[in-house]
């Protein structure tokens, strides 16, 4: 008989092993990087129907987050403001800007001549009540799954700043998804709340840093301050399922 396989095949098994270990490593690394929320979510930056500039409003003008997201410290949800909130300023400021058209439509609704009065021919459904216009279809950026019950009020009131989950919104012209908001992201903070706790006053101050002494790093100062707050307030973030899943 003769050899079935040529001589070069003798090195094939070793080559296969080496190749497999490389491919395996690459696939694992790829999945870890590309298939986790750190990649799939962070950076999501949809185009909004109205080019609202957070960098300008929250950063330069210094509007407090709660001016618009007014429910954030009382409700589980941080509401997106209705058109009336926008219009409280924009009735006067840039009242005729074409960029604000969707907001004005939403606000005035039936009141087509925008005089705040409902005339006979404007009252389409004849009930004498002024109906609002179509909602502004803001595109949702941050979303936890249905089975996750994140409560804004408890976080905001217990010294967790907006910046922890949403990043430096005050520096974003167009808002994007800044943190992965995955379960491991939540757990990291729940396990070590001292890394994020800050005084209640400073919660909406996205630029805040714990006051630090000479020679002390930012992180260390934060941990010192955080531990103090944790102790004072009895902060005890839940680590078991019932904290977030109901």
């Amino acid at each position, binding site marked *: *008989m003769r050899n*079935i396989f040529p001589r070069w095949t003798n090195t094939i*098994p070793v080559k296969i092993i080496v190749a497999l270990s490389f491919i395996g490593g690459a696939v694992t690394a790829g999945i870890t990087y590309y298939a986790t929320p750190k990649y799939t979510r962070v950076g999501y930056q949809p185009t909004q129907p109205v080019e609202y500039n957070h960098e300008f409003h929250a950063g330069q003008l210094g509007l407090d987050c709660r001016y618009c997201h007014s429910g954030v410290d009382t409700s589980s949800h941080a509401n997106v403001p209705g058109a009336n909130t926008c219009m409280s300023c924009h009735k006067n400021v840039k009242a005729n800007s074409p960029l604000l058209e969707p907001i004005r439509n939403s606000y005035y609704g039936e009141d087509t001549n925008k005089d705040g009065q409902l005339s006979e021919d404007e009252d389409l459904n004849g009930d004498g009540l002024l109906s609002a216009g179509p909602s502004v279809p803001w595109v949702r950026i941050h979303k936890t799954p249905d089975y996750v019950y994140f409560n804004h009020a408890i976080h905001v009131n217990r010294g967790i700043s907006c910046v922890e989950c949403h990043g430096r919104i005050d520096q974003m012209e167009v808002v994007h998804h800044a943190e992965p908001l995955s379960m491991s992201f939540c757990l990291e903070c729940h396990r070590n709340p001292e890394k994020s706790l800050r005084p209640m006053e400073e919660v909406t101050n996205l630029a805040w840093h714990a006051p630090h002494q000479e020679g002390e790093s930012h992180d260390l100062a934060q941990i010192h301050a955080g531990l103090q707050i944790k102790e004072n307030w009895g902060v005890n973030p839940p680590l*078991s399922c019932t904290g977030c899943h109901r």
Partner: protein
Amino acid sequence: MDIKYGISATFNSAKDIYIAAGKVRDKGYNNWECYTPIPIHGLDGQMGYPRSKVPCFTLAGGITGFFTGMLIVWYMNSFDYPLIVGGKPYFSPIFPFPVFYELTILFAAFGTLFGMFFLNRLPRHNHPIFEHKGFGRTGDDRFMIVIEVEDPQFDEQETESFLKDLGGKSVNIIREPID
């Protein structure tokens, strides 16, 4: 073109090759091999082989498996995310014992198989011995001794006649073609 690989001699029975192997060894050959359809008891001794090293791989695999098991259980259930489950402790060597146990066996089995492959330098699909015409029969009912060219004592005529003296039939030179 070809190069010589060795000289082969076949035998008809286990008994013959058993005796012949002893004589080859006594003669002081080092690079030689018996090809048999079955593992023949005692042939290792006759050829002067030491005990197989496979058990070392098995042991290494077993120990790795046991500690891998223990490590994943401890890390996952007790260190990284301890959760209260049925009021049982976060870690104990008792409750997850089946996991350690199975992993011990799994890794030991891998150690054994791959150890065997490693020691036999398998898989190796191309080998000069496959060029031998009668090699096929060594899996069937022929017994064959091959003394390789590599052997310091190898001398084409002498070795050939030595093998013939041992009672080997169809003594052949194995040639490996080179392209």
